[in-house]
C-alpha cells in the first residue's frame, strides 16, 4: 500500500470532501496550497490573525448552511478564541434547541518536544472535553487522520481535532480507496495480556516502543488508542482490563483534571472492571508545570518510553 505523511492524509480528506460539497469553506491565516489551487480564494480564505473572529465566523457560516474547516495552527492560539469555542461553538446547538446544525472542523496542533517553550507547547484537549457540545478527536496516524477527518467532514457538529506537532511528517499506509473511521471506536494498536496501556496522540507511538522493549522481558502490553475523546470508547478499554487487570494511561497533557484522570475514573467506577483490577491504575502524564524551553527540562516534563516502562513495571509489582 502507498505511504503518505500525516499532513498529506489530512489534506487529502479535506480535498475529497470539498470536491463533494461545494458549500464548504476553509479559514486559516496560512492556507494549504493544494486547497487554494483547486478551490480558489473565495472558499479557501486567508484570515487575519484574529482567532475569535474566524472561529466565530465558522459558527455563522454553519448557521447559514455552510461547512467550515478552520485551522488555528497551534492550540495556544485556540485560547485566544475561547469565547467563541466555549460560549458559542459548544452551546449553540443546545441553547437554540437543536433548530440548526453546526458542521465545523476546527484544527490545531498540540504537544511539546520541539523547544517551543511554554506557550507553544500546550496540550489542552481536556478543557474542550469539559465543554459538552464539542466533539474531540485525536488522530495519531496518517490512516487515522484521514479516516477521522472524513467522518468529521460529514458530522453535523463542531469537531475539534488536536494533532500532535511531532506527527505531521510521520509516514504511514493510507489506502487510495475511500474509508471512514467512526467516532467512538478505539484502535487496539497491539494486543497483549499483562497490562493495558491507554495512550493518546504521540504517546501511542511511545507506548508501542515501550511494548517492544518490555516484550523482550516477557511483559505483554495491550496498547489502546481511543482515537476520539468525545465520544470515548470505554467498552474497548473495559474489555481489555477485564483481561489484563492492570491499567497505565499515558498522556502528554498535564496530569491534573486530564483525559487520563477521566479514563481512570471511568475504569474504577465501573464495578465489573474495578473488580478485575490487580493493581492501582497509574497515570503517566505531563508534569503540572508550563513546558520549559531548555531540552533537559522539557524532556523531564513530558512522558516518554522510559517513564512508561517504569510505570508498567510498578503495575506488574
Amino acid at each position, binding site marked *: 500500500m502507498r505511504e503518505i505523511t500525516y499532513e498529506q492524509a489530512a489534506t487529502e480528506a479535506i480535498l475529497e470532501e470539498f470536491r463533494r460539497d461545494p458549500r464548504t469553506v476553509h479559514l486559516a491565516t496560512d492556507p494549504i496550497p493544494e486547497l487554494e489551487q483547486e478551490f480558489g480564494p473565495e472558499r479557501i480564505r486567508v*484570515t487575519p490573525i484574529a482567532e475569535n473572529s474566524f472561529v466565530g465566523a465558522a459558527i*455563522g457560516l454553519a448557521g447559514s448552511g*455552510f461547512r467550515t474547516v478552520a485551522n488555528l495552527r497551534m492550540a495556544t492560539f485556540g485560547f485566544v478564541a475561547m469565547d467563541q469555542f466555549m460560549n458559542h461553538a459548544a452551546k449553540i446547538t443546545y441553547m437554540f434547541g437543536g433548530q440548526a446544525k453546526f458542521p465545523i472542523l476546527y484544527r490545531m496542533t498540540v504537544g511539546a518536544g520541539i523547544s517551543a517553550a511554554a506557550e507553544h507547547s500546550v496540550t489542552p484537549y481536556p478543557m474542550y472535553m469539559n465543554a459538552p457540545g464539542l466533539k474531540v478527536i485525536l488522530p495519531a496516524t496518517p490512516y487515522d487522520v484521514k479516516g477521522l477527518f472524513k467522518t468529521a467532514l460529514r458530522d453535523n457538529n463542531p469537531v475539534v481535532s488536536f494533532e500532535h506537532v511531532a506527527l505531521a511528517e510521520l509516514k504511514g499506509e493510507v489506502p487510495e480507496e475511500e474509508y471512514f473511521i467512526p467516532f467512538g471506536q478505539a484502535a487496539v494498536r497491539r494486543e497483549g495480556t499483562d497490562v493495558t496501556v491507554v495512550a493518546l496522540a504521540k504517546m501511542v507511538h511511545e507506548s508501542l516502543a515501550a511494548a517492544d522493549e518490555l516484550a523482550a522481558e516477557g511483559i505483554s502490553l495491550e496498547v489502546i488508542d481511543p482515537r476520539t475523546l468525545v465520544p470515548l470508547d470505554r467498552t474497548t478499554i473495559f474489555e481489555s482490563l477485564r483481561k489484563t487487570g492492570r491499567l497505565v494511561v499515558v498522556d502528554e497533557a498535564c496530569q491534573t483534571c486530564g483525559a487520563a484522570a477521566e479514563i481512570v475514573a471511568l475504569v474504577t467506577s465501573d464495578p465489573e472492571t474495578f473488580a478485575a483490577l490487580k493493581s492501582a491504575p497509574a497515570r503517566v502524564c505531563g508534569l503540572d508545570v508550563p513546558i520549559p524551553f531548555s531540552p533537559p527540562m522539557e524532556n523531564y516534563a513530558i512522558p516518554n518510553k522510559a517513564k512508561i516502562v517504569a510505570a508498567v513495571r510498578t503495575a506488574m509489582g
Partner: protein
Amino acid sequence: MDAQTQIELFTTMLTIRRFEERVAAEFYAGNIFGFIHSYIGQEAIATGVCRHLTTEDRIVSHHRGHGHCIAKGADMKRMMAEILGKKTGYCKGKGGSMHIADFSIGMLGADGIVGAGLPIATGAALAAKLEGKRNVAAVFFGDGACQEGEFHEALNLAAIWKLPLLFVCENNHYGVNTPASYSLAAGEITRMPAAYHIPNKAVHGNDVETVHEAAEEAIGLLRQGEGPYFLECETYRWHKHYLSDVLVDLRPPEELESWANKCPVAAFQAKLLRENVLTRADLERIDQEILGKVEEAYRYGLESPYPEPEDALEDVYSS
C-alpha cells in the same frame, strides 16, 4: 414615506412595546424567571432596519433581543413560551429570553456575551456573499460591544473581505451603569468603523423614519456588493440593564426623563396623527389588536407544558 409603510413601522414598534411591557409586568409579578433585558426605548432601530430584510437575509442579535425577533417576523407565541421556559418555545426551554433564535426566518439567535455576535455575523455575511444572491447579514450590538476586541476583529474582517454586513450599533450610552463616554476613548463611535474604511453614519435612533431611511441606503449598498456598512443609532433604554428589584440604576433621573420625552413610539404616533395618516380610532384599533396578540402569546406560553427534566439530555449534539 408612503402611509402604508408608516403604519407598518408603527405597528411593529408598538408590538415590541406591548410585548416588552407584558414581559416586564409578568416578571415583576413573579411569573417570569431569569434575566430579562428589556428593549423598551430602542424599538425604532430593530423596526427600521428589519423592514428592509427578507427571511433570506440573516441577523444576529444580542442579549436585549426581543425587539429584533419581533421585527424579523418571529412568532410571539413561541417567543413567550421560550421566555417562560416551556417546551413549545423556540428553543424548547433551553435558551430563555437571552437566546431566542428562529433560523427559519434568518434570525440566527440572540447572544448573551457582549460583542460575541459580531464574529458570528461575519460568517453569516460570508455565507451570503458566497451564495451570490445579493442577500445580506445584519448584526445588532450596543456601545458596550464596541469596547470588545471581537468588535474590532469583525470590523477588520468584514472590511478586508468586503462582506455584505450591516453593523447596527444601538448606542444607548451605558454598559449596565458605566457610561460609554468613559469607556470609549474614540469618543464618536463612527470613528472606529471609519478607521477600517467602512462607510458609516450616525443617526437619531429613536426616529423610526430616519433609521428606516438610513438602513435603506446602507442595505442597498450591501446588496450591490459594496462591502460592509456601519450604522450608529443613538438611543436610550428605559429599564435597568436587566429587570430587577435589586439592581441599582445609577443613571441620572433627569436623563431618563429627557429620553422618555423622546419616546420613539409616542413621537411617531403623534406624527401619524398630525399628518392624518391615522385617526385616534385607528390607533385604538391597532393597539387593541396588538394587545390581543400579546395576550394570546402569553396565554399560549402559560398553558404550554414545561419540558421533562430529562429533556435536558437532548440536543447537546445534532444527528
